């Protein structure tokens, strides 16, 4: 099912819109402490911005934005960020995922916890984005074969 439309209008419009969706996704991830949002929603939005280009352009073009071979390794890296934050806290004397043992002494305990939440939200956002893109890519590939 590799049929991309030839219309330049669709390609131009999705090229214009996609970075703004991506920017809003990043805002949703990083502003998730103070407004509705977080890793899952922001990751889904980042995936939407990537899939928009994947739907409207042909393979040569969308490989320039986000390579197909990157999606599973980056998802593993996102899970690794989450796990690594938990493991760092455990190695420094606390329980698993007990953030206030993280090595950030210049802040108060509550602030260190907020930073820990931010770190794992970035990991979750990365994993959700790449896995949604990976599911789309693999479904497309499997349909072709």
């Amino acid at each position, binding site marked *: 099912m590799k049929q991309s439309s030839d219309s330049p209008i669709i390609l131009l419009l999705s090229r214009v819109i996609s970075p703004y969706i991506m920017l809003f996704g990043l805002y949703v991830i990083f502003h*998730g*402490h*103070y*407004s*509705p*949002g*977080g890793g899952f929603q922001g990751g889904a939005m980042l995936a939407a911005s990537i899939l928009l280009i994947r739907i409207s352009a042909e393979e040569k073009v969308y490989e320039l934005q986000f390579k197909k071979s990157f*999606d*599973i390794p980056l*998802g*593993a890296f*996102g*899970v690794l960020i*989450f*796990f690594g934050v*938990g493991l760092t806290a455990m190695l420094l004397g606390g329980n*698993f*995922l007990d*953030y206030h043992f993280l090595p950030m002494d210049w802040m*108060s305990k*509550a*602030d260190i*916890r*907020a930073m*820990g*939440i931010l770190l*794992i*939200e970035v*990991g*979750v956002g990365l*994993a*959700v984005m*790449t*896995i949604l893109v*990976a*599911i789309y890519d*693999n*479904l497309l*590939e*499997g349909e072709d*074969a």
Partner: protein
Amino acid sequence: MKIINYTSLVLIGLLLIYASLGLPYRGDAEALVNKEKSLIGSPVASSYYIQNAYKDMNTPNIVTSILGDYRAFDTLGEEVVIFTAGIICFLLLSKERKSETK
């Protein structure tokens, strides 16, 4: 056969409606899950989160602080689940492609 299916659907619906009669009123702040203390006097989880989330981690969004800190282990397991789903898609759909090209 179809008759049995339809009647079982209707019976399940009636059973669920009968069960819903015992549920608390919509938006009832006095319902058991929304109280400050449970029946045996221990603090109820959601009320504890509302009262202590900002003090514990300086995060105004309580949902984020539950997701990222109080129940972080849950979120870790869930992230592993979606990663596994991605790997399953990859393995299921790219195996046959390789064997065909050989």
